């Protein structure tokens, strides 16, 4: 069971309080009717499924209720960082730098 830092509660808490919400930074097209079938499939289904640092979303569903973003290494399951929804995607190199 993972420990997850909720950027809203500013606490590190057990995974059972959280729900996974898949890859982050996949924005819903603002004008869906103008997208192609390919683009819509890309939005709906295609995922990078990274082996390594993955940008992903969690929801602190049994806590503050907020969706937020995280970068987690899917090989070690270690979180590199978590950040609030809407904040810019953190630079990967600065995160992995911290690990070394």
């Amino acid at each position, binding site marked *: 069971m993972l420990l997850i830092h909720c950027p809203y509660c500013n*606490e590190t808490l057990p995974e059972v309080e959280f729900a996974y919400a898949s890859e982050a930074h996949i924005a819903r097209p603002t004008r869906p009717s103008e997208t192609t079938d390919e683009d819509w499939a890309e939005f709906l289904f295609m995922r990078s499924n990274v082996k390594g640092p993955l940008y992903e979303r969690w929801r602190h569903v049994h806590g*503050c209720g*907020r969706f937020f973003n995280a970068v987690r290494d899917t090989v070690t399951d270690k979180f590199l960082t978590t950040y609030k929804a809407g904040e810019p995607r953190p630079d990967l190199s600065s995160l992995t730098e911290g690990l070394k």
Partner: protein
Amino acid sequence: MTAPISSFMPGVLTASAAARVGFAHRCARFSLRARGDLAPLEAALGLSLPDRIGQRTSAGEREVLCLGPDEWVLHAPESDATAITAACAGVYADHPHSLVDISGREVSFVIDGPRGAELLTLGCARDLDTIAVGEGRRTLFDGATVILWRDADNNFRLDCWTSFATHLFHLLDTGVRELGAENH
């Protein structure tokens, strides 16, 4: 077979030398959601709204706990409910917010006794030491979302949705007896 919720009367439901679980009197409960300038709402409610998740404030018998960045739960005497609704409605036009009556949604257990905190470890995965006395948190207890109010080291209130109450009580009761047996 677990007892139906209707059989729970305010007062002590189960007790051992280690811990005790009681059922709290009914109160008015509201979910309050708001952003931006909170002063008008605070004025309407007559208490300040804490801005850190887990923090509590109270004024008289009204008590509020911050659950999320724009979310509070408010407990008050039942007789206060109409006044609270009216007061908030009064500021809605200028300060839109969401006040929703959830009085019927939840019931509260009161947990105390020398090992009250340990009793909660039967169902709560988070470190209870990180909830300071006088604070509260929404968390998970035995698979159900609950709100814990820590009133003293070993004294908690646990709010849960009504339909989960008998299931959660079964575990609390089991734990009260289990911890009690350890004391012998």
